[in-house]
């Protein structure tokens, strides 16, 4: 009894180990497919079958004691075949259906189902009632294994449709069945060889689920996960344990050792020797693969980590659309993943993106030294004594990585590790790869930015061209009838006496015509390509004269204009266009203020530029209005064309300057014109 239970427990243990490993593997890969639960459940079902049949088989052999040799054989093989039933069904359903066609398929099915005959005989000959034998097995078969197998059939059909399942899987089936038959044959052989130990040796077939289980495991792993290293290791370790178990059993229960003295039998000796050699062969593989696996695992762990970091880094790089955000996020990632004291991106133009706050200012000396470097990556510790090493030491830089950006060079300056450890070569490789990606991302962003700017410029030009074309047509189509109407109305106006009621109407009509004419003229002025006539001009005089011209026809509103006269401020400008621009701003300011409004004009000379500010204390502009204020045809006035400021912007930009608006609702608005003192082309040439 002890031996029986020992063997049954052994079989159960080995089988559970194998399925446990498979389950672990499935669990490890669980994130890859939603269908993996099918595999996991199949493994559990198989383990259940192994357990129940191992115990049942042991009990049957012990209790039923068959009398004839055939009966013993059939009794012994009935349970293993029973083990195989689900596997057979599964193979028939899954693999045969997918791999075999025509008569081969039917032959295969018939051959497989012949294995049920021993069960039928066992049922017929056994004195024990049916449920006692097969109750758990059939329940499991009905409720657990069949549904799962059907699910697997469907899934594998999908996999096959995607060319993931390969025809050689039937070899796995044959290997599994062959393994079972071999074990049965070996068991029978040894039973005949050692009749006194037959009751023990006949337990060998109880381990028969192992080959199909292994075959199935291999099949699952091979075609589902493709992890050959792990599969091979698993297979070899199972085979090694199996053959070692055989060898031990044969050695211990089969009578005698390798050299059993006077009763030496060459066949028995050869078989035992073969079994032990096989066991060692497979165990050697287990050891070798185990060692290899552990090395690979540690190796892969780093590679997996690096790959994971690179993946995260790439995702981060593609998620940004502005350069500053990208650079700041990148340095944050570098700092976090390598546990660094600091990380900085420095560009050749002196722009610095730093993770730590406040932003460090790198000396121009460091920038100069960096520009002389040619190495893609520099570990400061490995540098010989040099000015660069000193400068890096002062800035607490551990590694310098050159970012090969297309537009301008950049450097990733990494601090030291918090742990104080040096940078490993693998980390440096990772940094180099990440730096290359960062440079590409920066280049892409720069390209995208310039592309967007170009597109905006093109759109603006197209808009201008469309307005120009429209304006030319409009000018002709509107000015001609206006001319005729005006000519006729003026004659009528002259004819009428001042007391005639109709004279007022004619005057109103003429005013309206004049307003239409002004709008058309503004549209033309905006659409027309401005031709500038630059000359030296005293802006102080120009502003004073413009204010005088602005104030000379007294307006309905009482508006006070403050202007602090300056000494002469000379600049090269188109005097007439600048006067128009300032006048336009003054008129806008007057329209914006209420009665008794105050307009302040300031003239500031700041180095190579001059600023003219026109402020009012009117109602101010909302943020939305400020954003659109320079758009053509946008106006906040009741009677405005919305072209005045657009023309003003065009003129100021033609001077190489800028026009800006700052406004607070309820407090007033300030327009600032910033223009260079020199002519634009002279300035760019300089």
């Amino acid at each position: 009894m002890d031996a029986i239970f020992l063997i049954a427990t052994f079989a159960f243990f080995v089988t559970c180990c194998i399925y446990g490993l498979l389950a672990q593997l499935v669990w490890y890969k669980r994130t890859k497919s939603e269908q993996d639960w099918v595999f996991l459940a199949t493994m559990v079902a198989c383990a259940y079958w192994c357990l129940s049949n191992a115990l049942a088989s042991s009990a049957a052999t012990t209790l039923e004691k068959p009398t004839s040799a055939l009966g013993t054989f059939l009794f012994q093989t009935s349970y293993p075949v029973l083990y195989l039933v689900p596997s057979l069904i599964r193979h028939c359903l899954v693999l045969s259906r997918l791999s075999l066609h025509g008569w081969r398929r039917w032959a295969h099915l018939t051959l497989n189902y012949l294995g049920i005959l021993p069960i039928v005989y066992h049922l017929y000959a056994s004195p024990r009632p049916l449920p006692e034998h097969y109750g758990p097995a059939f329940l499991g078969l009905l409720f657990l294994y069949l549904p799962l197998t059907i699910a697997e059939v469907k899934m594998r059909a999908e996999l096959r449709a995607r060319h993931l399942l390969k025809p050689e899987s039937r070899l796995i089936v044959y290997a599994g069945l062959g393994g079972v038959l071999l074990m049965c044959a070996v068991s029978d052989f040894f039973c005949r060889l050692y009749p006194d130990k037959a009751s023990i040796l006949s337990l060998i077939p109880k381990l028969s689920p192992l080959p199909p289980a292994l075959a199935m495991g291999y099949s699952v792993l091979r075609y589902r996960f493709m992890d050959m290293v792990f599969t091979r290791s698993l297979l070899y370790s199972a085979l090694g344990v199996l053959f070692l178990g055989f060898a031990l059993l044969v050695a211990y229960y089969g009578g005698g050792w390798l050299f059993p003295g006077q009763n030496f039998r060459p066949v028995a000796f050869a078989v035992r020797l073969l079994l032990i050699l096989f066991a060692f062969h497979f165990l050697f593989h287990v050891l070798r693969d185990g060692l290899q696996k552990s090395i690979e695992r540690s190796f892969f762990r780093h590679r997996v980590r690096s790959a994971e970091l690179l993946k995260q880094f790439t995702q981060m790089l593609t998620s940004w659309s502005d350069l500053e955000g990208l650079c700041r996020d990148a340095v944050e990632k570098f700092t976090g993943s390598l546990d660094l004291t600091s990380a900085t991106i420095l560009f050749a133009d002196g722009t610095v993106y730093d993770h730590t706050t406040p932003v460090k200012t790198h000396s121009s000396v460091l920038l100069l030294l960096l520009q002389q470097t040619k190495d893609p990556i520099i570990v400061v510790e490995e540098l010989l004594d040099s000015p660069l090493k000193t400068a890096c030491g002062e800035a607490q830089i551990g590694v310098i990585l050159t970012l090969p950006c297309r537009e301008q060079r950049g450097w990733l300056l990494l601090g030291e590790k918090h742990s104080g450890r040096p940078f490993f070569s693998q980390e440096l490789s990772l940094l180099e790869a990440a730096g290359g990606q960062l440079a590409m991302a920066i280049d892409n962003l720069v390209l995208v930015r310039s592309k967007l700017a170009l597109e905006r410029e093109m759109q603006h030009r197209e808009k201008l061209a469309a307005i120009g074309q429209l304006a030319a047509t409009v000018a002709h189509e509107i000015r001609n009838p206006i001319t005729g109407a005006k000519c006729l109305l003026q004659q009528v106006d002259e004819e009428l006496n001042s007391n005639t009621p109709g004279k007022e109407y004619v005057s109103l009509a003429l005013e309206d015509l004049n307003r239409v004419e002004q709008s058309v003229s503004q549209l033309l002025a905006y659409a027309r390509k401005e031709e500038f006539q630059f000359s030296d001009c005293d802006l102080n005089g120009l502003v004073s004269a413009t204010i005088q011209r602005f104030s000379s026809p007294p307006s309905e509103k009482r508006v006070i204009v403050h202007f602090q006269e300056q000494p002469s401020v000379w600049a090269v400008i188109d005097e007439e266009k600048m006067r128009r621009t300032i006048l336009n701003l003054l008129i806008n300011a007057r329209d914006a203020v209420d009665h008794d409004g105050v307009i302040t004009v300031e003239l500031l000379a700041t180095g190579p530029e001059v600023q003219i500010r026109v402020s009012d204390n009117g109602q101010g502009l909302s943020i939305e209005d400020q954003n659109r204020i320079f758009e053509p045809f946008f106006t906040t006035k009741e009677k405005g064309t919305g072209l005045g400021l657009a023309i003003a912007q065009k003129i100021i930009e033609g001077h190489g300057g800028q026009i800006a608006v700052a406004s607070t609702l309820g407090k007033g608005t300030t327009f600032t014109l910033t223009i260079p003192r020199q002519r634009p082309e002279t300035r760019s040439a300089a």
Partner: protein
Amino acid sequence: MKQTILVVDDERSIRIGLKGLLTKEGYEVTIVENGNEALRELARQAYNLVLSDLRMAGLDELSLLKKIKEQHPETSVILMTAYGSEKIAVEAMKAGARDYLIKPFDNDEVKILVHQAFEQQALQRQVQHCMSDSTPHFVSKISLVRARQCSGYSMSSREWPQRT
């Protein structure tokens, strides 16, 4: 004898308006609506002044002006344009136009320009008469006329009309 003016414009209201305005000023005005008609009219009768639109159907922008200058060099031409651009104006002046008007114009502006054009024609006739006479007595008169021509209305001294 009344001064004759030919008004060429494809806009009916302009033709009618200018005819009324200039007739009231004492000129004899004929109106046509395109360049080809103008050339036919000029072939039929000589005109002192042509007031013509710059861009009309039938002829290119300056071709009417050039043909008038070829066939009737003594006729002054004032061009009217709805495109207020210096470039076109300069080209028109180079091609021999007496002056130009930017539409829409004031009636007074038209009166002044037409008056100046006839005044200049009169001065030119005087100069030619004096030149043909060739007596020393008129040398001082010629100098006087030339001086008036130079100091009179000219492109350089005229402020460009600003329409903003």
